């Protein structure tokens, strides 16, 4: 049996063993009557995750290295937070662990060069949605009566069919990840770099604000010259590799035909090329969002509006003030009105 065959058999096996171990860990960590050794379960699950990472290491492409520490840290935090979230008997803690997962996820987003989404995730999810969850959890939790030691409901403290559910879940996981072990190339370097020309060219104001005055002061650009724009799209012509930008004489009334001959590439000196002139993630995302999915934004707006209305209608409390209370209210209002 040569090495390749060994590898190809070990990887799925390794994965399946890891899944089994992970499932065992999750089952152990599940809340139940009596002891629920979440720590042991967590360790087992972490071991499983480690096995998977080992498997992934074995299938990495030639010359590719290990992912760095941050990836591992964020992945472990995210998965551990998720594990603890689904196993913690107290809803408030579960929600807090979910916030941990969210923050770790946003770390992964950062690694994936999705800076905007990373922070949006923290703001929207951890900041808004989870706080709503916490509110509702607090609103909908019964206060403990005398017989109970703490405010822990039965339905919180015991999991339902932990073995069957966990088995099903991990079988699914194993199946989903089997394909992963066929290997893919490493992530491309510097996302958006290839397209930053285009992004920059789509943001003329930014370039002009930064460059036009500087270039004129440095007398690299004549006063009668401006940046050339492509006739059909109105975009600038920028070469980020060669650091050049196409300049053209300012359009004079009635002399449009002669422009072509006097167009020239202006080389921008190193110190004048500001860092922020590269297209950023937010700009790229904004262009993508508004340029290619405008209708979807509208639909999302409508969905949010409907959700808002729906939630208002659903949660409206049927306030049934008693007559006396009403009268009291009216008296109070009357007194305030007189003031």
């Amino acid at each position: 049996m040569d090495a390749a065959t060994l590898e190809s058999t070990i990887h799925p096996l390794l994965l399946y063993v890891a899944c089994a171990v992970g499932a065992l860990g999750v089952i152990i960590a599940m809340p139940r009557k009596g002891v629920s050794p979440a720590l042991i379960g967590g360790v087992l699950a972490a071991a499983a995750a480690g096995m998977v990472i080992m498997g992934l290491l074995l299938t990495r492409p030639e010359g590719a290295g290990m992912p760095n520490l941050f990836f591992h840290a964020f992945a472990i935090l995210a998965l551990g937070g998720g594990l603890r979230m689904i196993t913690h008997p107290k809803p408030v803690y579960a929600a807090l662990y979910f916030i941990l997962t969210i923050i770790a996820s946003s770390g992964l987003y950062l690694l994936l060069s999705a800076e905007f989404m990373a922070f949006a995730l923290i703001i929207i999810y951890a900041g808004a949605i989870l706080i709503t969850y916490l509110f509702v959890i607090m609103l909908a939790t019964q206060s403990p009566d005398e017989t109970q030691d703490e405010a822990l409901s039965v339905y919180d403290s015991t999991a339902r069919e932990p073995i069957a559910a966990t088995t099903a879940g991990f079988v699914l996981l194993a199946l989903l990840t089997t394909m992963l072990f066929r290997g893919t190339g490493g992530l491309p370097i510097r996302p958006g770099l290839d397209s930053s020309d285009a992004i920059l060219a789509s943001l003329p104001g930014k370039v002009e604000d930064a460059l036009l005055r500087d270039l004129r002061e440095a007398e690299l650009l004549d006063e009668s010259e401006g940046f050339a724009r492509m006739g059909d799209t109105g975009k600038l012509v920028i070469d980020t590799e060669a650091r050049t930008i196409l300049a053209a004489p300012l359009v004079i009334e009635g002399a449009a035909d002669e422009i072509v001959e006097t167009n020239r590439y202006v080389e921008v000196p190193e110190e004048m090329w500001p860092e922020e002139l590269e297209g950023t993630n937010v700009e790229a995302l904004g262009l993508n969002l508004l340029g290619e999915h405008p209708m979807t934004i509208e639909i999302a707006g409508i969905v949010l509006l409907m959700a808002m209305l729906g939630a208002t209608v659903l949660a409206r409390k049927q306030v049934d003030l008693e007559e006396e209370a009403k009268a009291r209210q009216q008296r109070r209002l009357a007194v305030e009105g007189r003031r």
Partner: protein
Amino acid sequence: MTGAILDTAFAAAFALAEPAADAAHGAATHAGDHGAGHGGMSGGALMALIPLLPLFAAALVGLLACFNEKSKLPAYASVGILGVSFLLTLITYLGWDGHSVIRVGLWDWISLSWGDGVGESLTANFAFYFDGLSLLWMLFVTGLATLIGLYASEYMSHDVGLGYCRFFGAFNLFVFSMSCLVMGDNLLMLFLGWEGVGLCSYLLIGYYYKKKAAVDAGMKAFVVNRIGDLGLLIGTLLTFTTFGSVEYASLFESINANTTATGAPLDATWQVWAIPLLLMAGAFGKSAQLFFYVWLPDAMEGPTPVSALIHAATMVTAGVYLVARMMPLYVADSHLIALTVVTWGGAITAFWAATIAMAQYDIKRIMGYSTISQLGYMFAGLGVLATTGGVFHVFTHAFFKATLFLSCGAVMHGFAGQLDLRKLSGLWKVPGFQIVTIAMLIGCLNLAGFPLTAGYFSKDMILAEAFTTPDSQIGASSWAGWLMLLTAGLTAYYTFRVFFRVFVGPVEYHAGDEDHGGDHEVDAEAAAAIDESHEDDAAHGHHGFHPHAPGWAMNLVLVVLAGASILAAGLYFVGDHHGWAGGMVHGSATYFDPAHVGDHAAAVIGEAGESADDHAAHAHGTILGMDPHKVMYYISGVVGFVGIGIAFVLHFAGRTEAATSKADALARAIEPVHRWAEGKWFVDEFYNFIIVTPLKVISHLFHWFDKLVIDGIVELFGGAPKVGSDTLAPASQTGVLHDYALRMIAGVAVVLVVVALVLY
């Protein structure tokens, strides 16, 4: 306000009036050169108002119904508007030059084109076509509608409220539809009106919708008419495919030129006899002729004004109108096949219905059968090329039959729905019924063909023409003439049977039990109030019942109509072309010269030839060797007298009570015949047996097939999973969310396992 709106509409619409000679070109050009017409916008607008006013009235009455109007306002509004409509018709008639065709276009209704060739475009404008024929029809349609509307305002008074509005809404809608039918510029407009009047007829027959008989009668009328309408529809479509047009103007042009759309000679095609026969099927359905007549007697379940207007005077003559209107097409066939069928269909129907009418006891039904019989005369008249006679008979019949029906209605109104002639007698002597009796007498004289009445002259024209027309032209037309002559005698008999039984003789009456389907108390109270001064009448042993004498509206209408029936006779002597009706027909676009018919297909139509009067120039048939036009006056007069005399002897002389007469002995003597005639020759039962029963059997078969097989298959697919889940996995339906989620995930996992096994 309405006038202003309409004026604006008409300013935008095209209106034109052009001489008959130019009418032929109209179809192709009238959309373009609407400025050229010299009829003038205002004239066109006035004419267009004739049908639109009733439509407006219908809408107005509907609006009143929405406001829950509880007065007689709907009736008076309707009568007023219909009256204006009649006046407009009259103005149009007076302004008509006697021979031209006036076409008034309102808007493009149907304008289709799927090619450039002949017959590849369909134009049917919402336009009106005025010539002698449609003017004649419109005169009596709007006139009678006005009068009968006035009559109905009192007759229907027991129903004031929503029912009243419903009645007058349908009434006005009927007048609109009838106007469309008569004045339509093309066959599609005619069809629109045709179906419209059918609908209104249905609505009004079933007016007493709580009465099963009325609802059934409405349905029967509708269904029977559908069969005929199919013929009309196919005929219209065939007309279009043959001539490439449904507009009268271009149709008549093609027929005159003896060409079809493809240029082939018309008289060599099969369509030349097929189209008339198909149109005739529609006409026979609407006009209750042979095979289709069964709906009309049942239609008497409707309120009497409806019977008078729709089922005696106007709608049922739509068939006659159709045949008269399309007469050029009928005479285009050199063999005159369709006309022969029309003649014999009419003659046989006339006789057949008369025999039934002789044995009936319900006076309104007798009038219904007599209507069928008289319509038979009209068709026979058209069939034997006596368009003038047929049309004149339509005109006179409209008045005297309306009179008769309204008189019957007055009786019905006064005697709480009593219509059995065995339970009414001597109404002449009942207070308040003198006018009714006189009106009835005038109507009966007309119907019986008493000399010098309008009915006498119009019937004579038909009878004489039946003998005049050679048998070589219309197959055995003289035999049809003899049959109609016999029928004339029968008509006189059964007409005066009613009169002698009900209106004269000893005074005796029994109240009806149903009170014409409306409320009971109000009418009885009204009767009591009105007849308070006639307490002594109760001495006749009528269980305290007081007849309810007709009020001013009903009497007025009866007087006017009776007068009109008498005066109509005068029309016979007006004009150069066999009376006024002859002049109208002569001036219509469908006029043809009977002398030339059958010689060749290119009958001269619309030609102002005077040869029509010149009968001597052509060989024609005789009656017993004499000139029919001269002797028919005497023959038919004698026949009428004989019929009246027999009725006098059997039903008046020596009769002492309402229920019996000398005719009973005669009836017993010919018991089987009498029983069959009284049972209407059991045609309804026969139809039930050969059509309705098999249909029911088949429907049941289909029903069970549908239920067992089709539904069975559907329910199998629905039921199998249910049974499966019920029997195999009852425990799985726990209702708990987690169980479902778990099973769903397990299912996905299984699918993925399969996929993975296949992939690896």
